[in-house]
């Protein structure tokens, strides 16, 4: 180990020498070097002297507990602590999860952390406010199986009020199952008020139809939700007109598609037929055109619906799509539709033509 012992590393070896950490061979090497070097010999002597000085120090343990009374005291105290530890019930998860323990923990945490306390108060206040609002709404709503007649004192929505409704003033709350969604309208001017109800209510339908019609005023999400809410009310001419309007003019193809879906089953109405044919003929979105064509085909297959006359433009538009549509699926399906139309024609010959 000490093959490279020299004045530069002698100090550390001297410390180890004085500490008794060197082997006999290494001790010999240290002494041999000290014999040759006066400076290192002085360093070694100084190290040994330091050790002797420190070793001569009376250790505190010799004076503080000479009679071992402290040791006896420590033992008895520790064994008592062991008794206490053994007497304590073992901690388990059930104990940790007891409400009282949680309450105590929270109490201590909040007592010593004012910031946490303030944050908790704000949170509790916000939650309580939200819950109270919901509770108030629930007790304010008519109870199921309650009075047969519902008398509403609210005045019908005027055009001015409808125009005052914004996207953020409409809240649609879907209900479980097939129940109609709850709708809340916040009318800001001229006299701010909140109108609540379902699409069964005429005022709500009127307002939602207004939303569906005005794509520039209401965002896509609100329009889509409104169409969904009105789906079950498509028999209402006002609703059908709004859907047809959306199918013709809404800039968002998703809204137009949703409008076609909502109009299924009501496509016997002339205005709806016209809107669907218009979409098949003019819509720049192939998805919308396909949906319009499929709706038309469904109607043709439905015997009950097929008894109602088709729009006079149907044949012309189907021919045009078969020949000119950029989408091959539409061309192919248009040919199918024309074939089906021809067979319907043959079937109806004795009874007269349905379309020109």
């Amino acid at each position: 180990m000490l093959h490279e012992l020299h004045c530069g590393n002698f100090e550390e070896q001297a410390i180890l020498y004085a500490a008794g950490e060197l082997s006999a061979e290494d001790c010999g090497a240290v002494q041999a070097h000290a014999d040759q070097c006066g400076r290192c010999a002085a360093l070694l002597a100084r190290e040994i002297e330091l050790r002797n000085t420190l070793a001569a120090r009376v250790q505190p343990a010799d004076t503080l507990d000479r009679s071992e009374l402290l040791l006896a005291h420590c033992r008895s105290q520790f064994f008592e602590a062991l008794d206490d530890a053994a007497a304590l019930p073992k901690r388990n998860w059930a104990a940790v999860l007891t409400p009282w323990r949680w309450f105590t923990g929270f109490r201590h945490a909040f007592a010593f952390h004012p910031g946490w306390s303030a944050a908790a108060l704000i949170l509790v206040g916000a939650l309580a406010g939200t819950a109270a609002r919901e509770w108030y709404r629930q007790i304010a709503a008519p109870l199921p199986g309650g009075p047969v007649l519902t008398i509403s004192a609210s005045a019908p929505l005027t055009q001015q009020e409808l125009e005052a409704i914004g996207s953020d003033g409409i809240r649609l709350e879907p209900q479980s199952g097939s129940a109609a969604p709850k709708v809340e309208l916040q009318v800001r001017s001229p006299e701010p008020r909140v109108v609540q109800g379902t699409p069964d209510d005429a005022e709500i339908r009127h307002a939602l139809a207004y939303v569906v019609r005005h794509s520039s005023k209401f965002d896509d999400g609100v329009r889509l939700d409104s169409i969904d809410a009105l789906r079950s009310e498509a028999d209402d001419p006002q609703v059908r007109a709004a859907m047809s309007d959306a199918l013709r003019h809404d800039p968002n193809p998703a809204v137009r598609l949703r409008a076609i879906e909502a109009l299924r089953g009501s496509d016997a109405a002339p205005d709806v037929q016209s809107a669907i044919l218009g979409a098949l003929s003019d819509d720049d979105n192939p998805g919308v055109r396909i949906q319009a064509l499929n709706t038309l085909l469904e109607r043709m297959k439905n015997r009950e619906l097929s008894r109602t006359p088709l729009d006079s433009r149907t044949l012309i538009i189907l021919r045009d799509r078969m020949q000119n549509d950029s989408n091959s699926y539409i061309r192919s399906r248009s040919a199918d539709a024309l074939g089906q139309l021809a067979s319907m024609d043959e079937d109806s010959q004795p009874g007269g033509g349905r379309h020109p």
Partner: protein
Amino acid sequence: MSDVSAGPLSVESLPGVASGASAPLARSGGAALAAADDRTLIEHAQEGDRWAFELLVQRYDRQVLRLALNVLGSAEDAQDVYQEAFLKIYRNLHRFRFECAFYSWVYRIVTNVCMDHLRRRRSHPEEQPPLVRQAHSEEQRDGDFFDHQQGNGTYSDPERQVFGHELGRKVEAALESLSPRERMVFEMRHYQGMKLRAIAEMLGTTEDTVKNSLFRATRKLRTQLEGLR
């Protein structure tokens, strides 16, 4: 050179390490256990045998308390270390897997607790009571460090007595200036007589790290005590 490092305790002299450990207490039916080796006692204690654990404590607590008294210089602090260390040992005994010597494991816990106390003392010196060894120790009543070094008969020399007090205080102050780790290494090597390799095992570090701590401690002590010798 005399082996000045040989303190009152060496690893080899730790009770329980050598076979045939003495039985300090005898309880009815427990004599065989009292004479058992550490492994048997540990296994019994791990199974919940309180008597076996008490025997283990009594095999080691004298050295633990001595170490704490020497390092902390305060009976109150040493008492705290005793309680804290043995409670830790009690609570963690089930984790001991005989992968090292039991005394190493015990000392690792004790040294950690001692170093925590030293660190607290350094960070909050105002909260510490005055050291017993400086104020009320029997050392002062019976004679100071210098008297012990020089032998009896120094009380009659007031000048020498004053110088001895002064040197004793300087040594204590010099030891207080060491970092907790340096203090522990120096104490265990110099006053407990443990080898550096054993100290490294107890502190959970390498022998080289312990050596470096010893070098630093020695240099600090040498510098602080330079003018007194």
